[in-house]
């Protein structure tokens, strides 16, 4: 790293850190650190300050690894990214104040040093943001995968009758998966009637209804019938208010009524002995 910055930081190391820490207290208000123990905040700040200064003399690769392990650990305990970006902004301000108020740097070198500080801080900010977003994307991927695994199985309940319970929000990608499972299950179990249970679907908007209607049409094409069950009062209201036409295939309020209707369609019924 550049000599004039290093010189300045090392001669004033103690004061810089002290000033920075004092001002960091203001950042804590109203953010994550509100709930964190004071000791943990102090420890993190110490560590953060030391790391910032250490990066001055590290090569790129080493700095990258140190920042990564630092950010991974803090992300894990829930520190928000903004705490560190604000901290770095503050660090920059403190440094610039030192440069300009005390005669630490010959005026000829002020501009050059200023740029060096900028580069140094920007590097750390970029790296931290990269680490954080990388980890978010990773988490998102994992959650998507988890959601996929959670996707609807087709359960045969009687001969020729199967149930597919839908749980959670149905987006386009999931709707495709549901449809494939549904049709392949119908062939596998030779189901004549499938009950699609939407008790666990929180909201039925035009998009969700569209996916359900498409699934029902596809079910008809492979040669089975679809009954939509689990229609709660509020779902019935939204469906009608949105003007969605589900008239083409039968609906029932509960799974039980659906099963009765399915048995009827396959010429059977439940009797008391």
């Amino acid at each position: 790293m550049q000599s004039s910055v290093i010189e300045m930081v090392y001669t004033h190391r103690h004061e810089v850190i002290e000033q920075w820490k004092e001002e960091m207290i203001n950042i804590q208000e109203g953010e994550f650190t509100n709930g964190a123990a004071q000791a943990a905040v102090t420890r993190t700040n110490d560590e953060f300050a030391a790391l910032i200064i250490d990066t001055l003399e590290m090569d790129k690769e080493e700095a990258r690894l140190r920042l990564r392990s630092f950010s991974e650990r803090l992300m894990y305990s829930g520190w928000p990214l903004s705490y560190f970006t604000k901290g770095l902004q503050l660090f920059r301000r403190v440094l610039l104040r030192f440069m300009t108020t005390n005669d630490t740097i010959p005026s000829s070198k002020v501009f050059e040093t200023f740029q060096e500080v900028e580069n140094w801080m920007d590097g750390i900010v970029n790296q931290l943001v990269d680490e954080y977003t990388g980890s978010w994307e990773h988490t998102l991927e994992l959650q998507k995968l988890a959601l996929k695994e959670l996707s609807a199985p087709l359960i045969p309940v009687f001969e020729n009758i199967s149930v597919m319970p839908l749980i959670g929000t149905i987006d386009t990608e999931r709707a495709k998966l549901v449809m494939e499972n549904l049709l392949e299950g119908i062939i596998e179990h030779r189901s004549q009637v499938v009950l699609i249970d939407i008790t666990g679907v929180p909201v039925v908007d035009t998009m969700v209804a569209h996916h359900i209607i498409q699934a029902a049409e596809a079910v008809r094409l492979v040669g089975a019938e679809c009954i939509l069950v689990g229609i709660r009062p509020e779902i019935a209201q939204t469906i009608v208010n949105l003007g969605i036409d589900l008239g083409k295939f039968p609906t029932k309020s509960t799974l039980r009524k659906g099963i009765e209707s399915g048995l009827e369609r396959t010429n059977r019924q439940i009797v008391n002995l």
Partner: protein
Amino acid sequence: MSVQSNVEVHSEWGIVSARQAGRNLAKELGFAGVDQARITTAISELARNIYLYAEKGEIVLEGIEGKEAGGVKRGLKIVAKDQGPGIKSIREVMEDGYTTSGGLGAGLPGVKRLMDEFDIDSITGEGTEITTIKWLR
């Protein structure tokens, strides 16, 4: 650069061989059954359009790679090109039910729905080039 295959379409048999080539490539690239059906159907529609409206042209099939968050995704690209009369109104042909041949009018809008990316480029009197991609899930 991965495999690329060109199929000339100037008869109804061209339609059949284009979709067979498409099915083979889709299988090779690891597409699941349903997506294989989507890809072959899209090729069939595009090849039929060439045969019906331009009389001859070609279908180019190619395995490709693209970038996505967290890695590389693979896909199958179909390019259908001809030196036919071109399409007068692209907006009209992309509407469901629009047909000049007495068909179902599901062709081009259907292809767009079957695939993930769709781009159409046509100059009246010079020809049409349609590029469409399906990504491996």
